[in-house]
């Protein structure tokens, strides 16, 4: 295919994309003449070029579309069908272009269908095409310009012919001038805004042959210099046609034209690689120079080299940066088409479109973004009727937001729709066997939401043409992770869903601060670092501790300190007071990273983490330093996430966190603190532990590879509390015994440390299922063990046997403590109940009044904010629930409570920590229920 055609294709595709976007904007704002004229100009350019290249189909289509748009300009009302028609015409043009690209020729076929419709639409209002011009010309200047243009363009060829003839016949000075004018004339066809001057030009030519020609000779000469033989050859002429088109775009406002050239991407990539290598080599040289004290006269040139390299690098980086808006360009059209197809009203708001990021990154996220926006429009935003019913404005909003944050770019895609259906996701996950019921029960909504990234996972009730086929979100995740990014979901029922994509700014080079912690070096991206503070107990800045948590007073503000060695697990629990604090800012959070040493800043070439290490959110990549050492690059965002201070700006998830905080505020929990295989402390609520035992290791028997011990005449399975701890073969083995009915389980621990009463404030939610999370217990970081993780491992068989033959009862558990709910649910499930939970009395009432059928209600009588008795009273007032059995949980029961309970027909009051009592109370209830039935 010849270059000319290729260039035409690239240009035209670009123009079409702009037209797409502009058309949607225009539909929303039909009175905006600037938009219309922009569209008009672009379509006209396409039409003109097609004419030159001999592409009749394209030309005819563009012409028909242009005619209709001309009508808009003449005041015809802009309607959705007409815009749709123009958009589908553009689609047809794209199709033909695609064929053209593949085969080098316009495909066979007819577009009479579209053209007919366009013509019909255009002729609906046969207004004054011919009448308008004269008065308008003399009215406002803007309209006049286009009017004149219109007139010339529609019958375009004719007037040009005439013009040409005029030129040819004109007594023109010499050949060169003629060449110039010919070229210029071509330019005129595409260059829309120039017509006023062209009018004059024409007149000038017609009237005065000599001097007028000279006036315009300058630009002409430039044009003809490029291709002196351009005289008559059509391709050459249209080649020029491109340049003026560009000139036209910028030339309107700025006299000095912005010079651009197209460069093959491979060339840029190669350049980038070479610069990366250059930077590395420069770093090595600098390192050598740093080490040798002698100056052999090369240090000055080396400085210069360093400087030049930096500048070169900057320059090359700039060639790779593109505004993210480029990836968004298609979205308005996508959303518009979708909202028409799905009969929804959707507003697309785009913020931060000029945020720049690496071209390579941009390419990778383009498709995922489109997919996610489609998803939001299809699944997220409800139909106008539903929205109205939910008390929301009929028009839904999808909001795209991009901004820089701590060395990476954050893109948010938020809708104000119905939110994720967590129940459906849980159900689907269980159906597909991705997670067991027990696991699902324990998972937070945020964890459950992540299931939508599983391959083939779709909860859409029906498969639409848009989405719901379950392909996509996993691809989205894979694509984003491929470039070292992350995707997060926040969703709230009825309020919408927000996807947050974090991607590195560039895949190439960043400035980083090299720090050390425990003899190991790390790189922290400079962009996240706001200052460095030296700390020691004697200096002005010293680390203070609140309940063991390090804090730095910095200019009257408290700065949370994260000792790097601690998050890395490089050191034990000793308190570090010396070193440097790297004050880091990530979004709205400030925190200090405590390191042992700070070296220098270095330009590092970011290399992606090995796929085996990518799950460690603390690191964003690695690099090779000047001295050849590999160092890890710390991801400040990941660090912020790890230290858990991220929660406060997470508006959707904050509910759960608040809840936990509330639990912590008013509850003292007795905790059994013990040690597992590693140094770290672990704890479990004492209420869950039946007994503590120490047994002779020799009595442990191994049955089919699993350790068991004979305990009170039964076999009790043993489980090690963590992977690092092997169950002892000799000596004494400490056990925590958990009993569940007749079944017991022994949790092997290294050492039982203490029993403490403390506020249980789970600060870090663990990603591991064997831990609930970490909490500060008596000033020490302690891992809170999730007993529910171990119970099913050994008790599964028993509970299944027990359950057999008995109808499953449903139960509603009302307890404001997430912790207790999490602990009790697996136990109740193992006893054969279908468990529903509610954290507040209000929620319980809502569940029950919404038709949830339960056999038994188990409620904490001291619900936060609302008495459990009040809950029961309101239940008794409801005719449906007057007889429903209720079991009350309490921390301490007094006669007054018991009397009140009797009055409200509460079947039993059980101490909150007495799980066995609860189970037997339930069993008793069951019998009476069965008898009744």
């Amino acid at each position, binding site marked *: 295919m010849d270059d000319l055609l290729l260039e035409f294709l690239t240009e035209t595709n670009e123009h079409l994309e702009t037209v797409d976007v502009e058309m949607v904007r225009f539909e929303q704002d039909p009175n905006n003449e600037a938009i219309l004229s922009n569209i008009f100009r672009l379509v006209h350019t396409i039409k003109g070029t097609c004419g030159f290249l001999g592409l009749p189909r394209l030309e005819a289509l563009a012409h028909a579309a242009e005619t209709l748009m001309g009508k808009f300009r003449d005041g015809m009302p802009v309607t959705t069908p007409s815009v749709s028609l123009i958009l589908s015409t553009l689609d047809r043009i794209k199709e033909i272009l695609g064929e053209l690209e593949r085969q080098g020729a316009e495909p066979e076929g007819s577009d009479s269908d579209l053209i007919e419709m366009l013509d019909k639409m255009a002729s609906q209002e046969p207004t004054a095409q011919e009448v308008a011009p004269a008065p308008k010309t003399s009215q406002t200047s803007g309209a006049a310009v286009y009017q004149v243009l219109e007139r010339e363009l529609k019958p375009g060829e004719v007037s040009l012919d005439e013009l040409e003839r005029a030129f040819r016949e004109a007594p023109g000075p010499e050949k060169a001038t003629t060449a110039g004018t010919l070229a210029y004339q071509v330019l005129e066809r595409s260059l829309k805004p120039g017509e006023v001057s062209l009018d004059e030009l024409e007149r000038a030519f017609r009237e005065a042959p000599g001097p007028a020609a000279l006036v315009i000779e300058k630009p002409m000469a430039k044009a003809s210099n490029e291709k002196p033989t351009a005289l008559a050859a059509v391709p050459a002429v249209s080649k020029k046609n491109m340049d003026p088109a560009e000139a036209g775009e910028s030339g309107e406002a700025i006299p000095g034209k912005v010079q651009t050239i197209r460069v093959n991407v491979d060339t840029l990539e190669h350049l980038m690689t070479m610069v990366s290598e250059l930077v590395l080599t420069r770093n090595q040289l600098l390192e050598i120079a740093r080490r040798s004290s002698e100056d052999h006269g090369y240090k000055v040139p080396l400085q210069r080299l360093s400087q030049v390299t930096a500048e070169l690098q900057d320059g090359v980086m700039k060639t790779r940066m593109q505004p993210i808006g480029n990836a968004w360009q298609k979205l308005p059209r996508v959303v518009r088409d979708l909202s028409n197809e799905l009969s929804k009203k959707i507003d697309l708001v785009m913020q931060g479109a000029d945020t720049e990021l690496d071209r390579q990154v941009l390419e990778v996220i383009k498709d995922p973004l489109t997919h996610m926006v489609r998803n939001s429009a299809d699944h997220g935003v409800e139909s106008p009727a539903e929205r109205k019913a939910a008390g929301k404005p009929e028009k839904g909003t999808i909001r795209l937001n991009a901004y820089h944050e701590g060395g990476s770019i954050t893109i948010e895609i938020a809708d104000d729709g119905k939110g994720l259906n967590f129940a459906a996701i849980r159900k689907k996950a269980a159906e597909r066997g991705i997670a067991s019921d027990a*696991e699902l029960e324990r998972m937070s909504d945020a964890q*459950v939401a992540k299931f939508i990234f599983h391959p083939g996972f779709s909860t859409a009730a029906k498969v639409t043409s848009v989405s719901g086929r379950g392909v996509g979100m996993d691809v989205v995740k894979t694509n984003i992770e491929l470039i070292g990014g992350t995707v997060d979901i926040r969703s709230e029922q009825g309020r919408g869903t927000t996807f947050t994509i974090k991607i590195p700014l560039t895949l190439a080079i960043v400035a980083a601060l090299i720090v050390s912690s425990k003899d190991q070096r790390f790189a922290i991206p400079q962009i996240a670092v706001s200052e460095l503070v030296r700390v020691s107990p004697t200096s002005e800045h010293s680390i203070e501790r609140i309940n063991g948590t390090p804090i730095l007073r910095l200019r009257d503000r408290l700065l949370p300190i994260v000792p790097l060695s601690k998050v890395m697990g490089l050191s034990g629990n000793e308190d570090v007071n010396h070193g440097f604090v790297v004050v880091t800012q990530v979004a709205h959070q400030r925190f200090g990273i405590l390191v042992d040493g700070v070296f220098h800043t270095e330009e590092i070439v970011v290399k992606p983490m090995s796929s*085996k290490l990518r799950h460690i959110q603390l690191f964003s990549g690695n690099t*090779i330093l000047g001295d050849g050492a*590999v160092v890890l690059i710390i991801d400040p965002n990941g660090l912020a996430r790890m230290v858990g201070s991220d929660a406060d700006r997470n508006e959707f998830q904050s509910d759960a966190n608040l809840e936990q905080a509330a639990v912590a505020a008013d509850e003292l929990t007795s905790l059994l603190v013990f040690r597992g295989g590693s140094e770290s402390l672990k704890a479990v609520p004492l209420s869950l532990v039946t007994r503590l035992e120490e047994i002779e290791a020799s009595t442990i028997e191994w049955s089919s590879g699993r350790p068991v011990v004979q305990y009170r005449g039964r076999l009790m399975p043993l489980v090690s509390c963590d992977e690092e701890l092997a169950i002892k073969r000799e000596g004494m083995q400490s056990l925590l015994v958990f009993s569940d009915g007749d079944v017991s389980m022994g949790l092997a621990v290294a050492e039982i440390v203490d029993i403490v009463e403390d506020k249980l404030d789970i600060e870090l939610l663990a990603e591991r299922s064997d831990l609930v999370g970490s909490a500060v217990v008596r000033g020490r970081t302690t891992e809170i063990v999730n007993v529910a993780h171990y119970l099913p491992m050994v008790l599964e068989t028993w509970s299944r046997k027990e359950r057999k033959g008995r109808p499953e009862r449903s139960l509603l558990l009302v307890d404001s403590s997430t912790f207790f709910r999490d602990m009790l649910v697996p136990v109740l499930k193992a006893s054969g109940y279908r468990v529903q939970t509610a954290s507040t009395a209000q929620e319980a009432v809502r569940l029950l009044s919404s038709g949830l059928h339960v056999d038994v209600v188990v409620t904490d009588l001291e619900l936060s904010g609302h008495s459990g008795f009040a809950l029961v009273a309101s239940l008794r007032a409801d005719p449906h629930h007057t007889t429903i059995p209720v079991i009350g949980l309490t921390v301490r029961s007094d006669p007054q409570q018991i009397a009140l309970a009797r009055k409200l027909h509460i079947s039993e009051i059980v101490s909150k920590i007495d799980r066995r009592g609860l189970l037997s109370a339930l069993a008793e209830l069951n019998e009476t229920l069965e008898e009744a039935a």
Partner: protein
Amino acid sequence: MKLIDSIPYGNPKAASKQMEFVTVMVAGQLLGLPISRVHDVFVVSEMTTVPLAPGEIAGLLNLRGRVVTAVSLRRRLGLGDTYEGGRRMAVGLENQGEAYGLLVDEVGEVLKLNPDEMQPNPVHMDRGWVGLSQGVHQLRDQLLIVLDVDAVLAFETEREAA
């Protein structure tokens, strides 16, 4: 049983019969890696440990300007590390576009073996080993376990289920 897809160059007839293996020693056991998968063999100089990394990963290496993930074959085989300074050898492998260095105790010679003579894994072999072994070759004075390179490098890293 899955065999290695690529065939060494040279006489096609001999090639169909013979496969070449790079032999390595770990804890006194001779193991063989198909030569087609081995990029190079190198001495480990300086290694950066990765905090919070899975136990199998010993660290990161700089191999001629490329960052290589060092995987301890000992730990992969469920053996303890007994590194006591001195020379450390690694076999350079490539898997899904990423470079790995498999840390071994010693690198031996290259052996030509006939794939037909490979015996299946003994039934009572350690479970962890069975997953990594394609079979066993009987050499004159010892046994050689043929390592499944893909299996060796396919260990679980994502701890979170979601």
